[in-house]
């Protein structure tokens, strides 16, 4: 949040920074989230118990295309489409000596080949439609601070690849999210494009059960804290 404040201060200090009449902002944001994924953690434990060093990422990365609009001076609405991805893998490295010899004999070109091969590859993805209503409890000419909550609907998928097989499962589910937002209220003009920035941190409750017959009650639980940084065009 302090980074955004600094950014706003910098932009405020340049002559092209304008006071804002913006009521709509359109943009994209990058998201890092920390989903609970209890079932996937149990799956990873089972893989490890079977003697494989399976590594499940702790952070899901993604992005959101979103639009924010001011309903009143105190209320702001956001709608977005987001994608989030969590990866896990059991990798097998080439023998280091072979790798070095390969690199030397190929005049260095061999070093461009990845040293590890994903033998077991797990990809969990969530595609969500989100809406959130915010109450702006602090708003100045440069920044606003708001708190919001809203529902989401998620299409989630799981794909597990091994050397000879590929297992796919998917499902849908509703969820909720609540967050704090810090938005730039002044506009910085990049040429003719009025740019604004935003920062959001919150919690998402969103567990999706896989629909496949063999999946039982296996859930892709994307619930967890998230952090989002976005850049927007003010309209």
């Amino acid at each position, binding site marked *: 949040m302090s980074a955004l404040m600094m950014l706003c201060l910098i932009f405020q200090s340049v002559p092209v920074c304008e006071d804002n009449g913006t009521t709509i902002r359109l943009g994209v944001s990058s998201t890092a989230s920390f989903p609970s994924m209890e079932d996937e953690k149990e799956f990873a434990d089972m893989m490890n118990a079977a003697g494989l060093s399976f590594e499940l990422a702790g952070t899901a990365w993604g992005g959101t295309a979103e639009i924010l609009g001011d309903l009143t001076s105190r209320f702001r609405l956001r709608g977005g489409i987001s994608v989030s991805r969590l990866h896990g893998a059991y990798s097998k490295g080439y023998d280091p000596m072979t790798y070095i010899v390969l690199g030397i004999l190929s005049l260095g070109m061999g070093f461009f080949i990845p040293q590890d091969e994903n033998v077991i590859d797990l990809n969990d993805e969530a595609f969500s439609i989100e809406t959130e209503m915010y109450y702006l409890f602090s708003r100045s000419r440069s920044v606003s601070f708001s708190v919001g909550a809203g529902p989401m609907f998620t299409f989630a998928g799981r794909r597990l690849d091994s050397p000879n*097989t590929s297992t796919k499962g998917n499902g849908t589910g509703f969820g909720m999210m609540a967050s704090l937002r810090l938005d730039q209220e002044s506009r910085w003009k990049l040429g003719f494009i009025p740019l604004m920035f935003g920062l959001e941190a919150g919690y998402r409750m969103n567990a999706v059960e896989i629909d496949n017959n063999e999946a039982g009650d296996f859930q892709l639980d994307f619930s967890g804290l998230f952090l989002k940084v976005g850049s927007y065009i003010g309209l």
Partner: protein
Amino acid sequence: MIRLYFAPIVILFLMAGCDDTSYPFDSVTEPFTFTYELAADGSVDIFVVNSYLVIVRNLVNDESQTQGSHSLEWDLQDNGGRRVPEGLYYIRIMLDDELIKTLMYEVYK
């Protein structure tokens, strides 16, 4: 220039040599026998779990077995007598309700 010309060939040759498919699990297409070791006498449960953590087959239910080496066959069928779909499966061996071994298999047609 000549050496550069041969570089891709060398890479392909060595990549083929690097293609080590010795994984810490077996790939199976038909019924197979696995072995396990019991450190003590006790009550044994052995079941097969799929990659969604669902038990698809109970191979041994609360059976008294003696210390030592044992072997057992899995016919790649689930509890309903159907062949399991392709995928990763885990045979879990419990002795006196304690997990002592997990074996992973890749089942494909």
